[in-house]
């Protein structure tokens, strides 16, 4: 006959023995502590979270979707976009994290100017809900805009059917950028160079750098005047005339090159401005869809 006291002692012993086993087990196999890694991620210890995700403990979890997703997010926040995309693309299509991971992977490639790869990923994404289809078309439209292919951009935009006000605003923004690209008149580096041949500094004026144009004109004209003065008073073969003449010629030629370069920089600035705006507007719906 087992008394109540014996039963109690037996229950307590079972609990404590199993607890000590559990403890020993947990000490010997630390494992991939996803709860703690999530905590590190949420509190902004991204390097630390990545360190644990890349450690031996998580190596058996390599195929685990949440590990790859978390790694992708951490790399994204640390602005290591290539690594972020690689991690996102390891998420399996069966996972619930798949759409978000692939959309972000494509977005990362778009940020790193790998537009073909970004488009390829987006085309491959299998989307079920209508919102994801909208997002897919919208993101591809953004990439088309980055490629400067306005016809394809408009085609993609026509496919979008959506009633959400927040996404409507982003679409309007993309359309405005498209209009801006349409109305942008490209400047020619050759014309800038030619203008500078005629009047030093005028090429920079054409490029919109007025202050720099005036300063270039004054310095080139100054060295020209010095050369002329030395030529007039010392003759052509005098070393001073030759030296100042060389400086003038150098300054003149450098100004022609500088003017052409200024126009190239101006065009690149415009492209960069368009890229920033498009990427920003591509990011807004991504955020509102997946971070709700």
């Amino acid at each position, binding site marked *: 006959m087992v008394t109540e006291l014996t039963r109690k002692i037996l229950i307590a012993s079972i609990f404590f023995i199993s*607890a000590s086993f559990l403890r020993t087990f947990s000490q010997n196999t630390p494992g991939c502590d996803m709860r703690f890694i999530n905590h590190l991620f949420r509190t902004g210890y991204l390097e630390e979270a990545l360190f644990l995700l890349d450690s031996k403990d998580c190596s058996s979890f390599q195929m685990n979707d949440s590990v790859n997703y978390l790694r992708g997010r951490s790399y994204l926040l640390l602005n290591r976009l290539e690594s972020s995309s690689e991690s996102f693309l390891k998420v399996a299509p069966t996972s619930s994290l798949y759409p978000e991971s692939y959309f972000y992977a494509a977005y990362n490639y778009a940020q790193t100017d790998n537009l073909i790869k970004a488009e390829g990923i987006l085309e491959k994404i299998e989307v079920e809900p209508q919102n994801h289809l909208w997002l897919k078309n919208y993101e591809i439209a953004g990439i088309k805009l980055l490629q400067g292919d306005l016809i394809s951009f408009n085609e993609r935009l026509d496919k979008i059917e959506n009633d959400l006000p927040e996404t409507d605003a982003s679409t309007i923004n993309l359309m405005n950028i498209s209009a801006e690209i349409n109305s942008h008149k490209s400047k020619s580096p050759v014309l800038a160079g030619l203008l500078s041949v005629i009047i030093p500094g005028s090429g920079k004026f054409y490029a919109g750098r007025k202050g720099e144009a005036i300063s270039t004109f004054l310095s080139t004209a100054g060295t020209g005047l010095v050369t002329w003065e030395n030529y007039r008073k010392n003759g052509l073969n005098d070393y001073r005339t030759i030296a100042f003449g060389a400086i003038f010629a150098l300054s003149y030629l450098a100004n022609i090159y500088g003017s052409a370069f200024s126009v190239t920089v101006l065009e690149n600035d415009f492209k960069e401005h368009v890229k920033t705006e498009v990427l920003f507007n591509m990011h807004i719906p991504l955020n509102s869809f997946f971070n709700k």
Partner: protein
Amino acid sequence: MLKLRYFSTCIFLLTLFSINRICASDYFSNAKKIYSEGKFFEASIEFERAIYYESDSNRIALCKYYKSLCYKELGEYDKALEELRKVNMESVPDSIFLVFSYEQVLCSYLKEDLNQALFNIDKVYLRFKDTLKILEFLPLNIICLNSCREWDNALILWNYYIDNSRLNDSVKRSFKQEVYRLYDKKNVPRFYFANKAENLSTFLPGSGQIYCGAVLEGLFNMSINGTLLYYAFSQLYNQFYCTGYFVGLKLFNKFYAGGIRRAKSLTEEKNQKGIKAFNVKNSNIMNRFYIVNTSPNR
């Protein structure tokens, strides 16, 4: 039967709680072991793990302290200060408050945030008025005051520091003499005024650099400016107006303006170097003082 169910529930909860407590302490010991191996980044993660699983506020504070030590070793003083800031200092015991405050002062000083370092020292003095507990803070306070060029206050603290040591009077007297010599007006680093250097270079190019002690650099600057000015006027005199203006005067203008800017930056450079050298001398005396003070044969 009902009693037995209650008993089982209690035992189950108690076991869960004890597992959690034991695990948290394991994490802390593991983190300390990694810290002692010099793997500070890894240790900082483990201390964070211990914080995450720990429920006792005093132990959490201790983990945060160690975590800040890891960051200090990694040279990330901002992060170290951030960890220390997370602890509610008003609720911790005096001993912990002192240790935490010391780290705060040290990290602020290493971050070159002297105002914050002095503010933290003042907080300690406010809490421990007229006690010997503040002695440990004096060397850092002296170094901070030196960096702020508050020689008189630093000297007062030096005296207090020596007076409250366990040394005999003759040794104390010899240290005091040494400190007084160090803080003599002739020995404290001279302060170079940026405005003065700029004004000097404005009136006579190169003289600002000479004022800062860079004699060769000053003479070089002076001779370049002189040569260019001579060239400009000789060209103008010989009716080479364009050459005189565009070559001579324009180049002179560039060197002249550059010389003024250089004189200003040189004062800042010299002032910082002077303070650093002075603090090294201070540290040497402090080290010797500490060794003598803690040796058994004092």
